[in-house]
């Protein structure tokens, strides 16, 4: 038996509550995109063997999962594609869940993706990555209950299919990588709490503009809400990242996309990945312009991504 898994990547659109005085903290908005992907194949084997990309990390993850469920059996995993690390595309959660899910299918371990995320230690701040893996689309998580910061399951509060005719132009400027793991945890710890008034603005933008515009497929309103949320969130992270966005090239790229036809633009997580939301017919043109713009400064990769509205693809070949 072989298990094949292909995951989406994740764009982070913003955090909701960085204050916490109503009893919940963080809460995030994200979208699953169809590129780049984690693609791997797993099967039972005589020895633990991991081949392909990020094999060392994958082996660690696999060993951890096998131990967590007390499995003595061995497996072979071939990692065919991965999402680049620490650039804001949610690679860690997607790889961990792909490994956990593939092994669980091989040994018929029945548990929810939420449980796997907790076992794999992927719920430090957010439930967005788990939701993206499980069902794709646009997702909003509820954040952590401040009474239980070790909470294992961060509930999802909204899941909407993302309009098929919209595209993201994703740009990854060649600058320093974003924060992750310990550095990220430290930055969150040192962050001054966001003023309740600012949190409240984000909440109303989400409820009264961002979410209805997805339902109504109104890209103009969606873009405006996204850009505004990004500015409020970015400003509250200014202390940790040295400005509204993670670097000057990232900030300039966001500005450039907005001036060249993107309806909204922002940074994913700690960056350096930035993106613009565009209509499918305009995606190619804006991508090329943005690439030319980046080439003149620090360089980097630009691509067009579509939303993934189904989550990870899991195929079991007997």
């Amino acid at each position, binding site marked *: 038996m072989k298990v094949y898994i292909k995951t989406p990547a994740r764009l982070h659109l913003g955090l*909701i509550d960085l204050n916490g005085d*109503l*009893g*919940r903290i963080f809460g995030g908005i994200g979208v699953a995109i169809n590129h780049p992907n984690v693609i791997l194949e797993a099967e039972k084997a005589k020895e633990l063997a991991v081949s392909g990309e990020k094999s060392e990390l994958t082996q660690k993850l696999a060993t951890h999962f096998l131990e967590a469920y007390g499995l003595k059996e061995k497996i072979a995993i071939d990692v065919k594609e991965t999402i680049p690390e620490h650039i804001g595309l949610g690679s860690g959660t997607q790889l961990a869940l792909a490994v956990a899910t593939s092994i669980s299918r091989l040994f018929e371990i029945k548990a929810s993706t939420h449980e796997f995320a907790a076992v794999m230690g992927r719920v430090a701040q957010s439930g967005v990555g788990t939701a993206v893996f499980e069902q794709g689309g646009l997702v909003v998580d509820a954040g952590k209950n401040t009474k239980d910061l070790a909470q294992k399951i961060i509930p999802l509060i909204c899941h909407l299919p993302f309009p098929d005719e919209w595209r993201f132009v994703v740009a990854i400027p060649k600058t320093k990588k974003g924060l992750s793991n310990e550095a990220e945890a430290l930055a969150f710890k040192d962050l001054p709490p966001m003023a309740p008034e600012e949190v*409240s603005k984000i909440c109303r933008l989400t*409820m*009264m503009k961002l979410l*209805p515009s997805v*339902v109504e497929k109104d890209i103009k309103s969606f873009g405006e809400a996204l850009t505004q949320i990004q500015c409020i969130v970015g400003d509250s992270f200014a202390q940790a990242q040295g400005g509204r966005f993670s670097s000057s090239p990232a900030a300039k790229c966001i500005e450039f996309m907005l001036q060249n036809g993107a309806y909204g633009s922002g940074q994913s997580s700690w960056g350096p990945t930035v993106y613009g939301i565009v209509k499918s017919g305009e995606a190619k043109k804006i991508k090329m312009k943005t690439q030319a713009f980046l080439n003149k400064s620090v360089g980097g990769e630009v691509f067009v991504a579509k939303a993934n509205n189904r989550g990870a693809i899991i195929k079991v070949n007997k």
Partner: protein
Amino acid sequence: MSVNRMQKINKVSVTAPAHLHTGNFDMTGDLGRLYGTVGFAVDRLLEVEVTKRVDVKSEDEAAYLFASRFVDAFDLAGAEVKVKKTIPKFVGMGYHTTLALSIGTALAKLYNLNLTTEQIALTMQRGAITSLGVHAFKVGGFIVEGGFRVDQREKMIPPLIFHESVPSNWLFVIAIAKEPQEKIVKMRENEDKILRNLKLMPKETSDMLSRIVLVKIIPSIVENDLKSFGEGLTAFNSELGKFWNEYQCGRTYCHPVVEEAIKIMLKRSTCACQTSWGPTIYGIVDGKTEAEVLTKELKDYLAKNGGGEVFYTKAANAGASIKEM
């Protein structure tokens, strides 16, 4: 379609739940939308039986009006509407919207019109300012809708943005004081005018209300945390009561009897809310025993204060049901 299934339908029955308003979170409108409503469908049902005929007939005045409106809009022959089961009228439980949607849905079925509930609502001129009733009819449960676009006022139905089933052990204790009813019925005659000339809410208040919904109320129902859920609902509803107080003689709730009933409710439930203009208020408690105790306390109180109806019920976690007869 097979010959058997071509049988003509002559009679349709529609059963639909009442609803309870918690409030609106954006009365500012500067983001391009207005209202945005939170509320529940509850298991108190309205039932209409609609039979095809050549003209419109009903003993119920409102039913006659809605049936005529729909028949005229689609140039149909007619129908007789019997209201078999009803929900309390003019007390903030959505009687008129639920009646209109039930009749429209039945007529659409009888005359084979392929319409969404939204289209039926627009035809009936109900549910375009707040669509709680439309979504209660469609899906039931706990509902949050995202308001209408200010440039599409009364031309669109606000979309559902969050929906969740209410746990079956969460019971709504509903108290309808009699004392304020006459005044509220009168006020409702001017409701359209009031809504058209409503003062705008400061941005900060709409922001704060949105946050209570997104960060407190919604996560609490997802986590089955009734205490926190009720706290959020009460905070949200009382903030709105303060905002509307000029229509309630300066009070957060519609009448002193209701104010006192809210206090009684808060001793047993973290939730105590007035629905719409009142006088209906509701609390949510965990389980039958709690519900019976609170129901009795409120009954005793109202008996001595002008009378009224008190009962408890679960949420309606499904929308309307349609039966061909």
